[in-house]
């Protein structure tokens, strides 16, 4: 373990530490950030109202739009002379999100990445190829600093130039690969096409993040690259990759909660949910100086587990990201996420990985139709067999999402294929 004191701290000690740090960061934000002071004043609270970590629920939420509205430096809580680095996330719409780090903020970030790398089994003897993009994106430099911090050898490839990536990975004997899981899959395929035997590579660990991925992708990456593939979680607003990472148990992503305090809230009511229950992940940075975040709504949907992990770490574990709360639909009173529907369709071999959901309201009742396509081998001359397939997918969806959708089997290639972000939902309800 990189930092056994923090990673194995008892729950009681952790709450104490979090309480102290929360008091400090709230004071800091209140006194040095006009934005947070105004927000707290609007809610009629002062730093004196925040005594323990349990008081966190009194604090206002922060959302992405707040960062846009205060572009570029409106949320900084230190003079710009203290900021030693800026990063930004592009964002497909509107202004970018800008974050600033003090020297200490960078040290905390490095600490987080170092804990992750050590949990993956990476040591100072290993060289790690960093194939996240370098630049304003936090992935490249974040991973880079972490590898250097533990004394490993960084191969700072950045993204792109796949042929060269493979050649150097081979020639330099990289033990680890840090990149997005989708790029790792692409690299794996390119290695297979290149004809270089996998045995000639030294690769054994993958640190994959910056986009949601599935257990199936893990299996595929581990088989194709003969590695152990681990999740690294993070977001620019909090610091970047290294907010948390998996351990050798691969049973949830440990969050480094002595620095980044996680909560799960109901995305509709914004009330905290019980441990283990799904909801929206919210972070408060407990030690950040440059741009503290109080109760930042990530929009990522997941659940937290507080039981001690088999690896010995007490640090809370997070489930895989299930989807985004922005995408959530409420159908007949049930929260439905397109990602859940997608996961069911992907696991059934009879269906193509394409779907389209249509929601409407007829006689004050929501209707929920999912259009799917069959894979070529599953068309049949028998009506019963076709109807059984409809029932199979509807039953499976009922057990996963809690309501039974109507299924319509479409002719091949009639559902729009994804080019980048596919549109999967049409909500025709006119509520009013």
């Amino acid at each position: 373990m990189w930092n056994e004191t923090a990673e194995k701290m008892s729950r009681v000690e952790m709450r104490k530490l979090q309480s102290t740090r929360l008091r400090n960061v709230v004071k800091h934000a209140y006194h040095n950030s006009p934005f947070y002071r105004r927000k707290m004043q609007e809610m009629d609270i002062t730093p004196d109202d925040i005594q323990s970590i349990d008081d966190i629920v009194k604090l206002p939420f922060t959302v992405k739009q707040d960062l846009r509205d205060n572009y570029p430096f409106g949320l900084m809580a230190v003079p710009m002379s203290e900021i030693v680095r800026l990063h930004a996330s592009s964002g497909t719409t509107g202004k970018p999100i800008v974050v600033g780090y003090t020297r200490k903020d960078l040290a905390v970030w490095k600490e987080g990445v170092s804990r992750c790398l050590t949990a993956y089994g990476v040591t100072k003897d290993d060289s790690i190829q960093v194939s996240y993009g370098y630049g304003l994106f936090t992935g490249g430099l974040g991973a880079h600093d972490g590898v250097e911090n533990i004394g490993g050898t960084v191969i700072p490839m950045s993204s792109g130039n796949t042929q060269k990536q493979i050649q150097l990975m081979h020639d330099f004997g990289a033990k680890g690969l840090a990149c997005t899981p989708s790029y790792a899959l692409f690299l794996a395929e390119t290695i297979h096409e290149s004809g270089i035997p996998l045995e000639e590579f030294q690769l054994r660990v993958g640190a994959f993040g910056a986009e949601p991925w599935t257990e199936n992708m893990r299996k595929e990456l581990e088989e194709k690259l003969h590695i152990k593939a681990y999740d690294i979680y993070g977001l620019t607003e909090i610091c970047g990759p290294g907010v948390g990472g998996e351990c050798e148990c691969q049973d949830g992503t440990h969050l480094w909660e002595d620095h980044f305090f996680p909560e799960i809230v109901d995305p509709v009511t914004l009330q905290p949910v019980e441990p283990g229950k799904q909801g929206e992940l919210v972070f408060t940075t407990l030690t950040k100086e440059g741009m503290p975040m109080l109760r930042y709504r990530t929009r990522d949907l997941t659940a937290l587990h507080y039981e001690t992990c088999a690896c010995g770490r007490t640090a809370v574990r997070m489930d895989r990201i299930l989807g985004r709360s922005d995408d959530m639909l409420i159908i007949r009173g049930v929260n439905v996420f397109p990602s859940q529907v997608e996961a069911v369709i992907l696991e059934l071999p009879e269906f193509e990985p394409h779907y389209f959901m249509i929601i409407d309201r007829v006689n004050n009742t929501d209707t929920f139709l999912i259009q799917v396509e069959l894979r070529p081998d599953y068309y049949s001359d028998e009506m019963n067999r076709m109807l059984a397939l409809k029932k199979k997918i509807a039953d499976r969806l009922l057990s996963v999402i809690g309501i039974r959708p109507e299924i319509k089997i479409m002719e091949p290639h009639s559902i729009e294929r994804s080019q980048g972000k596919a549109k999967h939902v049409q909500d025709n309800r006119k509520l009013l």
Partner: protein
Amino acid sequence: MKGVFMIAKQLSVFLENKKGRFTEVAKILGEAGINMTAFTVSENSDFGILRLIVSDTEKAISVLREHSYGISVTDVVRLRCPNVSGALGKAMDRITQNGIFVEYMYAFSEGDTANVIIRPDNLEKCVEVLGE
């Protein structure tokens, strides 16, 4: 009087329940010079399954695939018997007496010959029974 039978290839085409779908299939096959010997449709409110016996099965598969149709190919029994009363009954009797279940069947006539397409649940056994 005994009928003759053979194994025929039947094409099943998945059609969404919307206007003009059958017309399009007929047109595609027609343009490819393929003749439909017989067909039947099984349908529900969403979709239909068009089952076809055609003059050139392989060619029909390839042109329909080119047009992205969902298809399957099934071996069926094509029974030819004289177009007189009682002929089919004997054959059917033999099938059912031997515990063979018929999923569906349809018929068409060619002059003095009646043709019956039978989709049994057990093709092998059906062929054996009819051959006795």
